[in-house]
């Protein structure tokens, strides 16, 4: 497993609009990093930049010291798996075929081998989607779809797994299942970076939280350091309370600041 994914002086633009300016951060493999912030803070843009889908307007993203933009797309895709927000499934494919698309960076022009098939089965199992393997992907419920899409990104066996709102729209049970799958991957050495809106979930599952607002990093540290009322008031303009209990930390939102 690789060690460090870092941004140095990273400036990202959407069209002519500057979303993030001169950002410095360093992410470590084996950790779950949660990226939180209000709508429009630049979380999705930062994820797109960190996985090489959006070229920096200035600065650089480096993977183990190597400039990401210098890596060929397939080599980059073998190292970094990305799960977009509300992933599209355009055709009614069988779930196993859909999850098999995660092997694209590994298989070149050849088809899937027996070894690839075993990796796909393992990914389905790990994401709790083995029972869905024969289903038509267009008939899945929201929770099933989330499990299948996580299996798809796990099938690529990436060193880094970046996911944009992977838990949004899921019921609490499905959120816990999906979060546990991602945390397990991190404990196995993968670097996991998630954007989240649920602050309590961020406090419970993340080793490290980055709070982003208006394109700037307001806090970077363990949940008990980053999710404090002062930081959250500046980021979201809300009053909050960070509570610590036997089940872990939680963030109560008390009202507008």
């Amino acid at each position, binding site marked *: 497993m690789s060690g460090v994914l870092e941004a140095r002086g990273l400036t990202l633009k959407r069209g002519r609009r500057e979303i993030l300016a001169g950002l410095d951060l360093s992410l470590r493999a084996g950790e779950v990093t949660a990226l939180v912030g209000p709508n429009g803070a630049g979380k999705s843009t930062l994820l*797109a930049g960190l*996985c090489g*889908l959006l070229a920096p307007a200035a600065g650089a993203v480096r993977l183990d010291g190597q400039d990401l933009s210098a890596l*060929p*797309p*397939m*080599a*980059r*895709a*073998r190292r*970094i*798996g*990305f799960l*977009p927000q509300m*992933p*599209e*499934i*355009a*055709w*009614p*494919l*069988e779930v196993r*075929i*859909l999850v098999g*698309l*995660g092997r*694209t*960076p590994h298989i070149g*022009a050849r088809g899937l081998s027996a070894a690839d098939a075993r990796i796909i089965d393992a990914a389905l199992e790990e994401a709790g989607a083995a029972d869905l393997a024969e289903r038509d992907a267009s008939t899945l419920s929201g929770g099933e779809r989330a499990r299948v899409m996580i299996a*798809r990104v796990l099938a*690529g066996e990436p060193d880094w797994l970046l996911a944009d709102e992977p838990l949004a729209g899921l019921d609490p049970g499905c959120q816990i299942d999906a979060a546990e799958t991602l945390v397990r991957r991190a404990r196995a050495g993968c670097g996991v970076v998630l954007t989240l809106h649920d602050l309590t979930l961020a406090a419970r599952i993340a080793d490290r939280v980055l709070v982003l607002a208006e394109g700037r990093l307001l806090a970077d540290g363990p949940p008990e350091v980053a999710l404090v009322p002062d930081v959250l008031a500046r980021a979201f303009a809300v009053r909050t309370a960070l509570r610590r209990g036997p089940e872990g930390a939680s963030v109560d939102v008390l009202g507008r600041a």
Partner: protein
Amino acid sequence: MSRRAAVILGLSALVLILSTASLLVGRTVLPLGDMLARPEDPLWAILLELRLPRTLLAILIGAGLGLAGAALQGYTRNPLADPGVLGVSACAALGAVLTLWLPFAFPLLQPLAAMAGALAGVGLLLGLSGSAGSMTVFLLAGVVLNTIAGAGVALALSLAPTPWAVNGIIDWLMGSLADRSLEDVAFAGPFILAGLVLLVLTGRALDALTLGESGAASLGIDLSRTRALLAAGTALAVGAGVAVAGVIGFAGLVTPHLLRPLVGARPKGLLWPSALGGAAIVLAGDLAVRLTPSAAEVRLGVAMACLGGPFFLFLLLSLRRRMA
């Protein structure tokens, strides 16, 4: 044997049977057994000079249309995409028609202009629809292209310099395989085959595009390369077909739809079957127009439009039901 392999085998057999029928059946049915016994039989001239080019062109043009349709549908994630619906064929026809006004001419000018028109059509289509990948924007871009190319051809028709030019333009619009020669096959064949190869190279990218553009890019797919292959492949496969036979519509729309229930919806898995299916459909259409009892032969392009129009309507209705 996988289901897809069985379908490919079945379609190959169908193309073989239809090709044999296309060679032997027409206003005159050729007695192959007798002809084999008499190598000097004058009927061989009908078979080799009239029927063989027609059969070969039907296979090549049908394969080009079927494969281009499957690739365009895969790229756009849009089941209504087709070189005809999206205006690529009309742009090819406009390219060919515009050569009537050029102050110079050389033997391959018109076919080359048809391919240039098709390339400009695909380029405009991809440019107009941008990277939005939206079904609405893409279809609207196709409507715009069809309108512009249709207006251009209509203008050419009304300003035609000679009555022969009018006939030539009508030929481009209606599409036909009648009276084509082996020279036409020799001209169009290599371009169509090159187009087929380029389109097949998009297979892996089309599969990945099932996950949308950002999903495909995150899997390492170079979308610029995919767009370039798609544009060049469609221009060659469709443009060269229009260059020698005029506009033959709907084979590209119908074929992938008929085959999806048999081979599944995976875009890459649909490419070769669509090429074979397109060849079978154009062969069958051409046989049907030859056997239609009418004073003059019904044009293939017209017959395909008569069959394809209702099919398009059926698709729209079934899409509406699914979206309801």
